[in-house]
């Protein structure tokens, strides 16, 4: 983005404060344009003919430094690229790294379909939704266009996920494209030998294309400049993923260089970057070592600027950390992360089980939950809505009060007198000062838990069940 203050964007807006975008003023809308939480097209008046020039100018100013490339069609289409910063705290990273997993055209049919479905189905629940994989990369191992086309067809029959068509042979790619031409697949790849034919295919079928130039950034840039000149900027850059040793360090350096040049304004190289951690499998013998190393390589390039990756391991122990590290890096640091307020059962609580409260700050909540679950403490745990603040800050700031705790418990339809035998609540140690208030509000007995939920097991031994007064 070429501008960084709402005032600079405001100059181009109609300044009528019409409110059609949902904001009260054009200035407020301008602020959302700068933090990229709203799109310029949400301003209806500026789309009118008389503002055409201003619209175009502002759109150019607002365009992200790294081009955005869309792959696939429909609900599961992915966008990659679109970043404006080198460090997530400076804004946020946009468009999560798209994770593609491979199938190949020499696989037996039943294994092939099973693998596609596994990629399609994999999911892991996390903070209210599911983490999932994104794409299927079809590798041509047979060197046979017909076999490849057939494999592509089988993928399409079994999933709506976007595709990456992988071959250096233009005839193979063309065969795949014929089958997948309505699916906006990503071509992989043009290199210094086949670039003319692959460029023709990319332009003819109007699909995004990967440029592959292992450890040669001059040639990579040449390819990008040439393709742009020939008429397509739907490009993805693959500087080669060397999986080990000093070569891997070079790969790391190449990723840093490409993204830094792009963010700093070299438009010729400002495209999404692809990593292929799958190459880890070319140096490791057993499944566990290969899965581990692939995940390690993939994590590095999830953190440092990989926008799309092709991988192989579908082992749960590899997919989980990969999905989580991506979520970690792409979580918007400007928003406090919070969990759904309400009651959660830990284990299998009954009427004798304790009632604990904490806040809905995700980190706090999950820490407490994990401490309780790992110690096998059956209990009811309330996440009280504190606008996503931790206990200490919420008590100090008034987001965690006796009234809020009472309301939180009541909103869940829970009655301390009827649903428990003990009519008591365990407060976090850091909220001890709410004890008197909460006793008055609820009429229940209020126990003070430890300051750190890690000490709950020891605390429980000493204090539970509560001794009669």
């Amino acid at each position, binding site marked *: 983005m070429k501008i960084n203050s709402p005032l600079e964007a405001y100059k181009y807006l109609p300044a009528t404060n019409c409110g059609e975008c949902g904001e009260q003023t054009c200035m407020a809308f301008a602020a959302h344009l700068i933090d990229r939480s709203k799109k310029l097209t949400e301003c209806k008046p500026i789309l009118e003919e008389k503002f055409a020039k201003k619209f175009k100018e502002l759109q150019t100013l607002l365009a992200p430094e790294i081009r955005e490339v869309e792959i696939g069609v429909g609900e599961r289409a992915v966008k990659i690229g679109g970043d404006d910063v080198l460090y997530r705290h400076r804004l946020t990273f946009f468009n999560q790294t798209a994770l593609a997993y491979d199938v190949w055209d020499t696989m037996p049919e039943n294994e092939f379909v099973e693998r596609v479905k596994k990629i399609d189905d994999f999911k892991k629940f996390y903070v209210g939704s*599911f983490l999932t994989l994104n794409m299927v990369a079809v590798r041509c191992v047979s060197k046979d266009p017909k076999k490849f086309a057939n494999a592509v067809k089988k993928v399409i029959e079994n999933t709506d996920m976007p595709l990456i068509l992988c071959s250096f042979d233009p005839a193979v790619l063309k065969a795949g494209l014929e089958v997948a031409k309505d699916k906006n697949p990503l071509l992989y790849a043009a290199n210094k030998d086949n670039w003319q034919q692959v460029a023709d295919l990319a332009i003819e079928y109007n699909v995004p294309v990967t440029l592959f130039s292992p450890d040669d950034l001059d040639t990579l840039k040449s390819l990008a*400049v040439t393709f742009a000149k*020939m008429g397509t900027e739907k490009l993805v850059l693959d500087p080669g993923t060397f999986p*080990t040793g000093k070569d891997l360090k070079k790969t790391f350096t190449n990723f840093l260089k490409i993204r830094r040049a792009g963010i700093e304004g070299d438009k010729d190289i400002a495209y999404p970057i692809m990593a292929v951690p799958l190459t880890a499998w070319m140096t490791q013998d057993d499944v566990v070592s290969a899965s581990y190393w692939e995940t390690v390589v993939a994590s590095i390039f999830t953190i440092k600027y990989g926008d799309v990756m092709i991988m192989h391991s579908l082992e749960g122990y590899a997919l989980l950390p990969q999905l989580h*590290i991506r979520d970690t890096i792409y979580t918007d640091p400007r928003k406090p992360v919070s969990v759904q307020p309400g009651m959660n059962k830990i284990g299998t609580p009954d009427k004798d089980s304790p009632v604990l409260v904490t806040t809905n700050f995700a980190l706090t909540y999950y820490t407490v939950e994990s401490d309780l679950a790992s110690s096998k403490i059956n209990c009811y745990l309330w996440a009280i809505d504190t606008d996503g603040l931790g206990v200490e800050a919420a008590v100090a700031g008034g987001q965690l009060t006796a009234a809020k705790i009472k309301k939180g418990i009541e909103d869940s339809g829970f009655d301390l007198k009827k649903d428990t035998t003990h009519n008591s609540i365990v407060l976090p140690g850091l909220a001890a000062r709410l004890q008197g208030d909460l006793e008055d509000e609820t009429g229940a007995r209020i126990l003070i838990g430890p300051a750190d939920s890690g000490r709950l097991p020891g605390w429980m031994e000493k204090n539970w069940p509560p001794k009669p007064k």
Partner: protein
Amino acid sequence: MTKKTKLTDIASLFKDLNIESLDGVTIEGDIELNITGGGGLNPALAYALGQEISHISLHMANIGRILGYPVDQLFSQAPGMGVAGVTTPTKTTMQELLAAKFEVSPIKNWTNPIQEVTLGATSADGGSRKSTVTLGGENALPYYFDAEMPHRNYITMDVFDMPIGMAKAVKSNYEDVINDPAEWAKKVVRDFNADMVTIHLISTDPLIKDTSARDAAKVVEDVLQAVDVPIVIGGSGNPQKDPEVLEKAAEAASGERVLLASASLNLDYERIAKAAVDNGHVVLSWTQLEINAQKELNRKLMKQCNVPRDSIIMDPTTAALGYGLDYAYTNMERIRLAGLMGDDELTFPMSSGTTNAWGAREAWMVSSPLPQDSEWGAREYRGPIWEIITGLALSLAGNDLFMMMHPTSVQVIKEITQTLYGSIESKTVDISNWIGAEV
């Protein structure tokens, strides 16, 4: 007077003139542009540039005008090259790749090196360690090409002064030594290649065993006898008891230049700082995911407690992958960037309690508690990689020292951090046709 200018130099000239775009321009080879005294462009040259230059003639014309040359006159003399007629075709057929040179500049505002801190003292320095560990000294983000990274990452492995609850995958490695901290320490150095050992005096917590500070100090002595690597001494985390425990431990380890863990804002950090200064140790300055608190504590340690700059390491808190690692990562990255850009209150090496990764249920649970989840995979593989990825992320944010627990995690973190550091040779592999690889 005749100036000779290589055409390749023109690109940079254009840049200085603030030209919006020179898409697709390549001027390569040995062609030279002669700019004679009056400033004229040889028509023969325009011809030589031919097709390639015509599509950017608008830009060229602008440059020409800026240079004071009557461009339009030239164009009017050249049939079919009228400026007004130039359009960008949607598709252009190319015979050759356009030449391009990739360039990127180093970061200019990383001007402040990170403080070097040495842990452990050999007999030459009044200690009994066989080796020392030096952290810090960076002039760039870790592993970046902008500046050589002076020291690799180091790993200190956890040892506890009593049996504690651990994930099964971790515990199985320590069952034979769980009641003997000295043997435990020996094992992590001998069998698991630990660079250092951390002895956690957790039994001193009044809510656990309330072991006396004096007895705890004896354990420290035992560990110092058992191994000859530098050590870290950790308290129980009880803010009332820790100052006393760490004082006694610091005295017992006097001269060994241990890392005392830790000083924090919610306990009497002055006592811990004094114990470190009096006995020649390093202080771990521990805060909870808050860069300003980290600045405050570091400032207090330096100004109020007179801890020398070479005796402070920071622990800005490690949250596990999936449980706040986003905060921990960005907090560390911000701290390191601030240090490199000149904030003297943050230019210290960093340490991570990477073991915290084992708190994540994904690391230790047999399987997902949620029926909707896909298979999580075997937990004996899930746990170590949870610790690995947590540590790896923080290594990229600038962390120098890792406190870890599982031998496999230690091995892999060493492998990858030393790979990025640049000290590991590559295995030969031809990735140019990875597509057809048998995997």
